């Protein structure tokens, strides 16, 4: 890539891991990351307490509103495990991707903004590796953020509501252990749903030297796409919007599992990751680093 790198001997494979480790440490030791995770952990608490208060009189939620509100909310009172699904359904449209947008948008542009990017490149790791490490750290954040929501929801659900066998949305019953397994699978799918946005954010991040601009653009794109997904006249393009199949994670709660939407979602995320990941690579490896 650069002449400096070419001159140095090929870096050992451990370099990538070292780089990744330091990236992870930097990402998760930041106050803003911890604050984002804190906000995410608070959402299930809010939902759980609200449902608990509302149903204190014995009624079950959602009846008046005709089933409005996040998915699964009516089942929470019967089984605390449903709070996990409700919390993920409530945070997936906005809170989770916003947090991911902040982290991804900041990845390269933030370093450039702080004037630390060129020092990172002085190390003989190479730009591709640095980009990969940044993307891996962002994906790790997707996973951690999702798990934070899920674990917080599980804890709140266990505290406030009974646990036990649960009824799938197809009406069949599954044991609590299998329910937990599905909850974990759902968390993984939700985390995977965010990888497309993470790649998009990383690409935006390579375009500018301002961390704030990259974050704002990524979150702005997220909001735009969410709005476009609601406009019925645009149904022709909607299947290709990265957020279109996000709620398909609920299909894991069907019996038997309905894979169509899930697979479409994962394929779409892989496509976004490939397109914007390679675009980020094209941009970043050919970019003049001035800061």
């Amino acid at each position: 890539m650069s002449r400096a790198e070419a001159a140095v001997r090929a870096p050992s494979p451990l370099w990538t891991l070292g780089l990744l480790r330091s990236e992870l440490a930097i990402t998760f030791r930041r106050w803003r990351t911890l604050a984002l995770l804190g906000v995410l952990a608070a959402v299930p608490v809010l939902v759980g307490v609200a449902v608990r208060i509302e149903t204190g009189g014995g009624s079950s939620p959602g009846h008046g509103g005709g089933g409005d509100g996040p998915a699964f909310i009516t089942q929470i009172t019967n089984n605390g495990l449903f709070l996990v699904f409700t919390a993920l359904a409530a945070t997936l449209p906005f809170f989770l991707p916003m947090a991911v947008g902040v982290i991804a948008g900041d990845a390269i542009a933030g370093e450039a903004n702080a004037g630390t990017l060129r020092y990172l490149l002085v190390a003989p790791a190479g730009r591709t590796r640095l980009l990969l490490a940044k993307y891996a750290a962002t994906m790790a954040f997707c996973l951690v953020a999702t798990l934070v929501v899920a674990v917080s929801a599980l804890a709140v659900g266990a505290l406030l509501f009974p646990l036990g066998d649960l009824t799938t949305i197809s009406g069949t019953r599954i044991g609590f252990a299998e329910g937990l397994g599905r909850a974990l699978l759902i968390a993984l799918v939700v985390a995977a749903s965010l990888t497309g946005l993470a790649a998009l954010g990383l690409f935006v991040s390579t375009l500018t030297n301002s961390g704030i601009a990259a974050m704002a653009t990524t979150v702005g794109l997220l909001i735009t796409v969410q709005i476009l997904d609601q406009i019925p006249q645009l149904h022709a393009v909607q299947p290709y919007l990265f957020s279109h199949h996000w709620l398909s994670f609920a299909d894991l709660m069907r019996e038997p599992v309905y894979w169509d939407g899930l697979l479409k979602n994962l394929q779409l995320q892989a496509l976004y990751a490939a397109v914007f990941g390679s675009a980020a690579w094209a941009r970043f490896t050919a970019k003049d680093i001035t800061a």
Partner: protein
Amino acid sequence: MAPYESDDNAGAGEVDTPYSGRRRAVRYVVPVTVVGVAAATIGLVPALADSGDPDLPKVTAQQLIEKIAQSDVQQLSGTVKISTDLGLPDLGGLESGLISGVGKGGEGSSADPASKLTELASGTHTLRVAADGQDRQKVSLIEKAAEYSLIHNGKDVWGYDSKSNEVFHGTAADSGGKHKDEVPALPKDFADQALKSVDDTTSVTVDGTARIAGRDAYRLVVRPKHASGTTVGAISIAVDARTGLPLKFTLTPASGGAAVVDAGFTQVSFARPAATTFDFTPPKGAKVTEEKDAGKDVGEDAGKGSGPGARFRDSGPERKDHAESGGPTVLGKGWNSIAVFDSGAEGGVPSPSGNGDTGGFLGSLGDRVSGTFGKGTVFSTRLINALMTDDGKVYVGAVTKDALVKAANTGR
């Protein structure tokens, strides 16, 4: 190159050598290629999957109809995609009231099969079906992050709406066994209705083969011969070559355009579904509505199949279930038949759903017509037209507006 870059790379060590504009642009070939490959895949894979109709031994239309009649599929599970486009504005449940002509006006629970299955009357829906013999069937309407299931197991019939967590319970005995064909949206149900109306005014042909849901199928085309009065253009039924089960049903209107009803399996298996599929116990805390509380006619309607299929031809025997509300008489025969009944409501447009405030609204949807019968309002869809005369008579049929007026003129 260099002139453009001179003030950019002050900090970089490699001032003159690096990337020319062309070499930078070359890198963007990678994402562009990825997009291109993806677009090609999206465009080509369905085309490749569609190619090649299977080679099957020739059969006559008569043999194929017999094959359908003899078909005895007891166990199956699969996914059905059903699209209905009656050309109505999206009015929620209102249009089903229009189509059936007799509203139920019930304030039932949201798990009530009647209120749910009427949703099928417009738009595209995905259903999952499973059946194991006469006593155990299940049909689930897939919704966004929710599902509505109708489960028939032995003598129990359960409706479960996961979105509102409400349960509807009826017993098969209560409904006089009507629940036995309780999957009203299967291609088979549509096909049976269509084949029932095959008579000398109909041409039935075998039009090649097709692959539906990964299975080889014959395509049977039913076409009314005297296309003068009817709005039905053609009906195409894909029949599984091995089991004789109709796999796909498409009804195109005489006016052309998109299919009015298109119901087909996207995936099907003839293995016995897991027994647990049909087990249902109401979840704790769910609101259970018993059929008795919900009113008798609701259960009946559900068993009859509130889906559009059961109603797409109003001369069919399903009309009889409205006998208590006016006793329809059928004018004409075959595809041109028109059902006539007395709505009992005098003076203008009665509201089919029984809510007075929708009357004016419905009136605005129809066209005023007049003839020797007097005056009336015609409600048009792409398939079914209905004429409500001002003296309370209702003429319904899959026929054109003119045919309705003519029937009203001669029928009085």
